[in-house]
């Protein structure tokens, strides 16, 4: 029952352990939401708008309601009549004219107007999925089509179709940061000015598990229980309570089972969540819905989609004097808090990154279009910000004829400057950026590059190298976490956390942290998440789970050991100061008299030791890294292949090495996907989503690059949490995109295009690269804003 200290130590933090999640998952015994079924359940199918912008003139549902198996058909008007409120609009931001940020009311089912292709209009409930689909296919909605606009630049043009009347320019919100005058002066005096127009293209997060929602109401208590694939169960509970009538928070329970990938797409409440909950309440039967992949591509949140003009001013020695950015981010048709904060605030927090840049001038705009709503996708603003500065740094190096690493070296914030307050007012607690880059250069054999390039050339390939040195912000701005611990006489310690597993192995990492304190084998720890009746909190996003959730577990575990020591002292009738704890047992120092932790629990009222501990970390963490990529380009076809990728990552103390490495490498493949093949495209004329299936949206596949060299430098533990940990989940994605693109630009620049190669835009398809090489045709600037 209790292991030796040595045995427990094999499983504590810093060790590679088999994940506790794997026993069920690898046997095909995962409990994903759609795996559940309830007797008497209704299947829900949504009828969605085929138009990007239209008025709903009429809906004929009588025929549908008469179809076999159909129990209910719910319209947007039904929800309005029932008092279901729209999802909360963006708050806390302003338009350029000072009025509050603009947004259309986003209803669970569209009412009177539809604003993007795929917006849900009807919910059809039937006994079987086939019956619900048949009825949905027969639905007749009379739309009066209206002009639409999908691209940010088109939306800003004079006379563009308006998303809402209150914003004739389609601007939802604007934020200025920095000092425009000081910046202008810096540019005037600068020896070098670098300008890049950048399109950070729209992406679909595409977790392999589509969203799934189930709802049922207890007929006696009226209590609503939801099961869904979500990263933030408490947020969902709060949204349901806020938006559905007569539903106080204690009348809602949200449960989350296994989640097949989230990546930010499964953070906020969706219209479908509200509609399914409402359907369960009005039909009195359990309701289930699983998104089809087309629905995910058209109606689940997209990420990125921001067009920027970015400028760097440098002195003659390559010291950066100022950074100026003017950007226009697509919010989609419904500007929500997340979709606006990401480009206007969260990303910009790290725009100056690891460099000591004294002056900034940011003019950041959120623009509405008739497209899917935007939200968080792995990195959420930080990839966009880091992409800009890293593209600028490589361009500056090219202009100044400096090695890209040397240019960065001249601009790093030094350790002696820590804690460092950046021009956005964010304070980095620690970081050794030059040290990390030096390790990265060594790992990548930076010095040996020329020989490899010559070899590539002999094989008829162009070779390029790209560097990204960067940091990122983590934490989600919520630093408090509650953890409960229950020790029971059957020999288990149950730790309940409000962070949420979605594949990142957080249960294993939390268990390892518990093992550090309890000094028992890993299999004695049970981690419980995903039940709003048991615990509430912000959930998992922004790479916060390990450092906020993990710190809270460590605190709660320590409080449990301390509390149990007092119980032991009573049981042993010895002073507390004489009672020691090791390997699951309390003993009186200098004797062999003692009592086991689990036996002690059995003797307590309720036969358990229960601790409820809320604690907070001191602030966000700033993980950082150096990612170096080498590519080969086939000049005959334009195909780009990643052929080498090395990274050194500072994530503070590493709790679970294999898991952390999996986060970096898996995230990097997503970043490579953005660089080379992924893009959500709309037809400008009709607003149709052109990349609505996995045949059209190009995902990285098994034959992509896999030989990552990934290292961690643990020399700089975080100073604002008790476990010294920095977040890791998004770091790989943030670093990979600029590293890959810088490498391709390098290959083409070296092949004779020079700085003209910097006009390349993502994704770097073979066609674009071939046109650049064979025809010197480069894309026009995407920044078509006056």
């Amino acid at each position, binding site marked *: 029952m209790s292991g030796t200290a040595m045995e427990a130590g094999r499983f504590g933090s810093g060790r590679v352990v088999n994940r506790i999640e794997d026993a069920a998952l690898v046997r095909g015994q995962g409990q994903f939401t759609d795996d559940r079924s309830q007797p008497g359940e209704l299947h829900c199918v949504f009828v969605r708008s085929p138009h990007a912008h239209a008025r709903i003139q009429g809906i004929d549902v009588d025929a549908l309601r008469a179809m076999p198996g159909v129990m209910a058909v719910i319209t947007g008007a039904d929800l309005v009549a029932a008092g279901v409120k729209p999802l909360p609009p963006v708050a806390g931001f302003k338009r350029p004219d000072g009025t509050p940020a603009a947004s259309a009311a986003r209803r669970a089912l569209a009412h009177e107007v539809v604003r993007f292709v795929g917006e849900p209009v009807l919910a059809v409930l039937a006994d079987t999925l086939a019956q619900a689909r048949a009825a949905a296919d027969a639905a007749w909605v009379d739309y009066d089509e209206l002009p639409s606009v999908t691209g940010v630049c088109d939306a800003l043009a004079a006379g563009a179709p308006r998303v809402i009347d209150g914003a004739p320019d389609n601007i939802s919100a604007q934020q200025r940061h920095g000092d425009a005058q000081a910046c202008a002066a810096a540019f005037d005096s600068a020896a070098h000015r670098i300008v890049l127009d950048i399109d950070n293209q729209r992406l679909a997060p595409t977790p392999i598990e589509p969203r799934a929602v189930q709802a049922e109401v207890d007929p006696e208590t009226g209590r609503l229980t939801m099961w869904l694939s979500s990263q933030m169960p408490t947020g969902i509970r709060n949204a349901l309570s806020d938006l559905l009538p007569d539903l106080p928070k204690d009348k809602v329970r949200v449960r989350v089972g296994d989640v097949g990938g989230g990546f930010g797409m499964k953070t906020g409440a969706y219209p479908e969540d509200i509609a399914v909950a409402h359907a369960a309440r009005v039909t009195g039967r359990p309701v289930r819905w699983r998104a089809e992949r087309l629905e995910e591509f058209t109606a689940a949140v997209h990420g990125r989609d921001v067009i920027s003009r970015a400028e760097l001013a440098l002195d003659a020695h390559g010291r950066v004097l100022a950074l100026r950015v003017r950007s226009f981010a697509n919010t989609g048709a419904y500007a929500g808090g997340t979709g606006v904060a990401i480009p206007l605030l969260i990303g910009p927090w790290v725009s100056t990154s690891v460099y000591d840049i004294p002056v900034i001038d940011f003019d950041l705009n959120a623009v509405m279009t008739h497209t899917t709503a935007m939200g968080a996708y792995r990195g959420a603003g930080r990839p966009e910000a880091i992409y800009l500065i890293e593209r600028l740094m490589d361009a500056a190096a090219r202009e100044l004829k400096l090695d890209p690493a040397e240019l960065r070296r001249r601009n790093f914030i030094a350790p002696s400057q820590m804690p460092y307050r950046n021009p956005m007012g964010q304070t980095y607690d620690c970081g050794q950026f030059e040290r990390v880059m030096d390790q990265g250069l060594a790992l990548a054999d930076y010095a040996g590059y020329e020989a490899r390039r010559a070899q590539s050339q002999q094989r008829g390939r162009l070779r390029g190298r790209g560097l990204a040195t960067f940091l990122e912000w983590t934490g989600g701005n919520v630093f408090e976490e509650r953890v409960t611990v229950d020790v029971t006489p059957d020999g288990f310690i149950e730790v309940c956390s409000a962070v949420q597993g979605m594949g990142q192995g957080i249960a294993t990492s939390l268990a390892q942290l518990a093992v550090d304190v309890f000094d028992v084998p890993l299999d004695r720890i049970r981690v419980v998440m995903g039940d709003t009746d048991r615990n509430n909190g912000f959930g998992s996003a922004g790479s916060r789970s390990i450092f906020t959730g993990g710190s809270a577990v460590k605190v709660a575990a320590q409080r449990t050991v301390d509390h149990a020591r007092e119980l032991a002292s009573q049981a042993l009738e010895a002073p507390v100061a004489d009672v020691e704890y090791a390997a699951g047992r309390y003993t009186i120092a200098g004797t062999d008299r003692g009592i086991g932790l689990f036996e002690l629990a059995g003797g307590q009222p309720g036969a358990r030791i229960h601790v409820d501990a809320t604690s907070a970390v001191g602030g966000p963490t700033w993980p950082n890294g150096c990612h170096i990529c080498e590519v080969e380009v086939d000049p005959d076809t334009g195909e780009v292949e990643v052929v080498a990728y090395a990274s050194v990552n500072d994530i503070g103390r590493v709790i679970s090495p*294999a898991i952390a490495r999996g986060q970096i490498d898996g995230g990097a493949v997503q970043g490579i996907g953005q660089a080379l093949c992924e893009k959500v495209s709309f037809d400008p004329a009709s607003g149709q989503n052109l990349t609505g299936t996995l045949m059209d949206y190009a995902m990285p596949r098994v034959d992509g690059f896999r030989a990552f060299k990934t290292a961690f430098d643990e020399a700089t533990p975080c100073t604002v949490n008790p476990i010294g940990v920095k977040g890791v989940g998004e770091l790989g994605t943030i670093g990979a995109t600029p590293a890959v693109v810088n490498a391709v630009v390098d290959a083409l620049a070296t092949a004779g295009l020079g700085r003209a190669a910097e006009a390349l835009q993502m994704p770097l398809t073979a066609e674009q690269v071939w046109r650049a090489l064979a025809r010197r045709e480069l894309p026009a600037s995407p920044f078509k804003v006056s």
Partner: protein
Amino acid sequence: MSDQHDIGFTVNGRAVTLTTSATTLLLDALRGPLGLTGTHAGCDTAQCGACTVVVDGLAVKSCSVLAVQCAGRAVTTVEGLAAADGTLSKLQQAFVDCHGLQCGFCTPGMRRSAAALRGRVPQPSEPQILDALEGNLCRCTGYTNIVAAVQQAAATRAGSPA
């Protein structure tokens, strides 16, 4: 003429009979009436491979096979590998050892594709592994550890150290 058909086939070595519509997909038959939810639905266009099962030794996408097409055939799903005492198969153990799964949603499909390959090529080369897994998407792992797991399982079978 009734739309319902009686079909008999084996699932994981066990004979089953099912009465179902001609339009029922094998995926839905497995997940629904047969209660085998280990096989997953990830897309509508047979691209993602999360639904992969093995039918008469071939990896197939069960979202694109009708249940009635399996009459008289042997279907094996991810649940089929479990030993009675719960011991993991070599491939399952390799996935755990190599950190070859994160969210686990694509894993059953990956395992079935690997199993079908193993049936044909006990010691596959890396290009053969990549070819066998080409129809299976993963968004979490970046594939490195999945390929490593398949290689480790093959090495373990051959008796050489992983």
